[in-house]
């Protein structure tokens, strides 16, 4: 690889080369991600279809495999409507601000040892910071549309997202305590240690077991953070028609759609890294590798779809109660238990 790149480097000079080479890496990362997003929408319709004893999309291409592409093409040729009362600049900025952070967070996600775009020490902090930016897109979209439904949906959604971010943050503090690092690579490597891992039963040494309450809180919070069912009151089609993106159509709507699914894939990957050992193999006799991370993220994503097919929508006051009065105390208590556990002679994270 280096021998191949040497002539290119001489041709472009070091600065331009770094720029181009980083851009190439970003494209190599984004292209499969976009395909995943497209086929996640297909998987969602297909899986929920089967769960409800329907077939799901099966007309476009063999078994409906071309459905996401047909959807994208259709949306591309639709008119983008900007309502007369809207703030045009902010109205266009809304979807962009929703999608931008969902993609930008991938800069620090490690896929396997050494396969990471930017191995920075504060990667958890970066992910937390950039993931919180997504709420601006929703607020901007809801406010700039100048429509009542959009405004109500945006208020609900923003309050819900920030509420669950608190519980999510506290759950992450637990992960950081046992991994002694803010670096995602270190967090995964920390899960490869311990008695169970040395016995060839790696999956027992991952964070999900000793931090089980944190894992549950994190999993529930991610569903609420991405505005997915059963926490999808922001869109609540039976009450506020589509919430914050009611005025969006065509590609502008598609960007919101992309952002939601890109966010789902992001939080699924993060959950796998924090709690399910990332690229680590669950058992000793199988090698570690990127495929494990993909499999774990797909497993979490399946839960997202399963939740949507199974659970009825929460009421808004129930959502807020769950976030502030149930999940938050659970994490606080487990933080104290964890701290005491780490200081006691029974600590398993020496």
């Amino acid at each position: 690889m280096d021998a191949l790149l040497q002539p290119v480097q001489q041709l472009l000079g070091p600065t331009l080369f770094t720029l181009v080479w980083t851009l190439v890496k970003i494209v190599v990362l984004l292209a499969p991600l976009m395909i995943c997003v497209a086929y996640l929408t297909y998987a969602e319709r297909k899986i929920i279809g089967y769960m409800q004893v329907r077939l799901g999309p099966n007309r476009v291409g063999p078994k409906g495999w071309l459905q996401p592409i047909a959807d994208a093409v259709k949306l591309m040729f639709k008119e983008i409507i900007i309502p007369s009362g809207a703030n045009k600049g902010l109205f266009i900025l809304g979807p962009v601000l929703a999608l931008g952070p969902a993609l930008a967070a991938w800069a620090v996600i490690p896929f396997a040892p050494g396969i990471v775009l930017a191995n920075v020490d504060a990667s958890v902090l970066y992910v937390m910071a950039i993931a919180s930016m997504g709420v601006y897109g929703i607020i901007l979209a809801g406010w700039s549309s100048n429509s009542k439904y959009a405004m109500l949906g945006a208020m609900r959604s923003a309050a819900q997202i920030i509420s669950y971010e608190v519980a999510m943050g506290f759950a992450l503090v637990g992960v950081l305590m046992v991994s002694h690092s803010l670096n995602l690579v270190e967090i995964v490597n920390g899960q490869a240690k311990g008695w169970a891992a040395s016995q060839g039963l790696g999956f027992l040494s991952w964070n999900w077991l000793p931090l089980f309450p944190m894992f549950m809180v994190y999993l529930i919070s991610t569903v609420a953070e991405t505005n997915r069912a059963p926490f999808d009151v922001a869109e609540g089609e039976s009450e506020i028609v589509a919430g914050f993106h009611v005025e969006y159509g065509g590609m502008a709507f598609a960007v919101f759609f992309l952002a939601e699914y890109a966010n789902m894939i992001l939080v699924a990957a993060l959950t796998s890294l924090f709690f399910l050992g990332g690229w680590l193999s669950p058992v000793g006799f199988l090698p570690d590798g990127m495929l494990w991370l993909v499999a774990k993220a797909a497993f979490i994503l399946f839960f997202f779809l399963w939740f949507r097919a199974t659970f009825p929508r929460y009421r808004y006051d129930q959502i807020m109660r769950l976030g502030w009065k149930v999940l938050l105390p659970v994490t606080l208590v487990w933080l104290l238990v964890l701290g005491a556990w780490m200081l006691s002679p029974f600590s398993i994270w020496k």
Partner: protein
Amino acid sequence: MLENYFPVLMFVLVGVGFGFVPMIAGWLLGPSKPDPEKLSPYECGFEAFEDARMKFDVRYYLIAIIFILFDLEIAFLFPWAAVLGEFAGNESLRFFGFFEMLVFLGILILGYIWVWKKGALDWE
């Protein structure tokens, strides 16, 4: 050290650019036949009345303020959590690191209980 963050910066720019591309494509490829009815805000077929930027519930505001407190708390907890392991290995600092944070968290929890009792977290 700082050059590690260069790809991150580029990724943010590409990510934001990536949001604009489909919108421009849609704007170029899609039709554009505006009329006043189509451009009016959607209100289930009725003429829009009043201003859409209406008064909203004060509890949204409360939640935002409480969120800022808790999020700051988490920002303070992050570095502590990352070094707690080192404290645990050090005999003289062992309990200091833990109980310092217990005091800090204790103050927050007191406030949390007060907010709960005051009903700021209720949505009835």
